[in-house]
């Protein structure tokens, strides 16, 4: 239970001058052992995954499964509806004429993969989530414009307000802010 006079501290945020400074600072934050931090930028920065110690996204596997499900589902639908549910002889072709089923099979594979790519990306990112500690910052709105930030969450086991704050300064962070619940 927090009382209103001392709002709960949610994290720290510092601004960096440019993508190179952000990249360098990210490596230092990673090497210091912080886990719950993020580097915010208006566009993806090349090499940032390695600087932050992040593995490649596993979204590809999810979409791969979706593509298989979409194509096999489409093939099953066409086989079942044309051979079992409603068998009709069409220009002498066999009921299961798989060559003719290729376009629809492909289309449904693509359809399910496309939905999975977007929805999976959002799910991996925990989106939609309209509420997040970084939105308490006064400067954060600039991250979608031209500014570069590192945020460290208070949940991180290494987080200690003074030490972490001094550490962010040592990495070149400016405009430091304490993120507090309002």
């Amino acid at each position, binding site marked *: 239970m927090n009382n209103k006079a001392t709002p709960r501290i949610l994290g720290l945020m510092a601004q960096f001058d440019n993508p*190179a400074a952000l990249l360098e600072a990210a490596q230092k934050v990673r090497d210091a052992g912080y886990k719950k931090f*993020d580097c915010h930028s208006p566009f*993806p920065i090349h090499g940032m995954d390695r600087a932050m110690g992040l593995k490649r*996204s596993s*979204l590809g596997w999810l979409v791969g499964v979706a593509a298989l499900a979409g194509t096999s589902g489409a093939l099953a639908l066409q086989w079942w509806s044309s051979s079992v549910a409603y068998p009709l002889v*069409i220009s002498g072709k066999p009921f299961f004429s798989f060559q003719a089923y290729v376009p629809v099979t*492909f289309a449904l594979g693509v359809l399910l993969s496309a939905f999975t790519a977007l929805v999976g990306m959002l799910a991996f*990112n925990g989106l939609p989530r309209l509420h997040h500690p970084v939105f308490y910052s006064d400067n954060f709105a600039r991250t979608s414009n031209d500014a570069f930030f590192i945020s460290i969450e208070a949940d991180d086991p290494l987080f200690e307000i003074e030490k972490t704050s001094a550490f962010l300064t040592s990495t070149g962070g400016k405009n430091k802010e304490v993120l507090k619940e309002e």
Partner: protein
Amino acid sequence: MPEDAPLIAGHPTFGDITDQISGITERRTPPVWYLALGAAVSLLMVLVGSVGYLVWEGVGIWGLNNPVGWGWAIINFVWWVGIGHAGTLISAILFLLRQRWRTSINRFAEAMTLFAISCALIFPAIHVGRIWVVYWMFPVPNQMGMWPNFRSPLLWDVFAVSTYFTASLLFWYTGLIPDLATFRDRAVKKIKKYIFGALALGWRGGNRQWRHYELAYLILAGISTPLVLSVHSVVSTDFAVSILPGWHTTIFPPYFVAGAIFSGFAMVVTLTIVARKIFSLENIITVNHLEKMTKVILLTGSMVGYAYGMEFFIAWYSGNIYEQFVFINRAFGQYAWAYWIMIGCNVIVPQLFWFRKLRTSITVMFLASILINIGMWFERFVIVVTSLAQDFLPASWDYYKPTIWDISTFVGSFGLFFTLFLLFIRFLPMISMTEVKAVLPEADPHNYRHGDRHE
């Protein structure tokens, strides 16, 4: 173009890009926009009226006659779907090929794709006549125990085009998310903040998000790439699978795809030239960008010209007298006028772009792009009508003429297209701010290595 010429002119900062693109939607609405929207909505009403009367009265209001059972509706459908292909080519194939110049035009072109497919989808939906049973085209369980015929190219088309629309929409929205966050963060009015806040889904621009985002974008580009090639191939099978001289040829899929990209790029050029002028985007969409598009037009236009020639060659070489009759009839028969419009616009006009002076002249590009789109409409007219009007039985030959309703439906479809387009450029970022920023030299951390940055 020399490789070291900057993609974006005038060395803008990240903030300049945000201000310039967001500014377009934040400034007071220019009066010319209202005029344009008024005209577009008026045309849209023409479409609504024409379709309404069609549903009331039936396809008899069109100029269809006994041999010609496919008329303007199919021509318009193929034409509009074809236009859409440029957007997907720019957003997907050029992305995979690492063509960084695409960032200035991809949002715009993708929007064009969506609106062109919206127009296209109207025609097959209404040409069935009894539009209230149009759901029979989908595999929906029903009381008749009836299922669609998956061995028919017409049904492949339903799946190909609706998948194309959906996948393009998802790709477009994925690209929009970071820009919607920018609009959310810049919004002054509360209502705008809520709307863009909801649409941006809480995007924070953190690298933990970017890493999934970038892979999702790559995957969407990867699966859209075969779509560019497959959708118009499937459209072409509507013709190629039927046993009709002039339609029953294996050249159709690649020939249709080349034609689609050709007409689509022409449409992108037409729209881009107008938009960059009205919104002063000459620094982001430079003459270089336009010149690159004219090169694509030259390439695909020459492929289309080759296909026209090859059709004639095969008609002769196959020794099939029906095939020969159809092609000689196309060039010299009752529709020769349409054939030569097609040749003039699609084969001769793009050849202008061999010359650098003409490739970089805005006036030439603009006129050529319009002529090409007229030519591509006539290409579909020639394919659809000439093969049908003079079929196997001379007694049933006839001359096909459109009625006022054919014309009003087609003209009205421009109303839908431009209404959607005008709303898009007024309320959404018409150029991808995120992607343009990412191709600025300042975005590359390597450019800071030795203390100061290189230009």
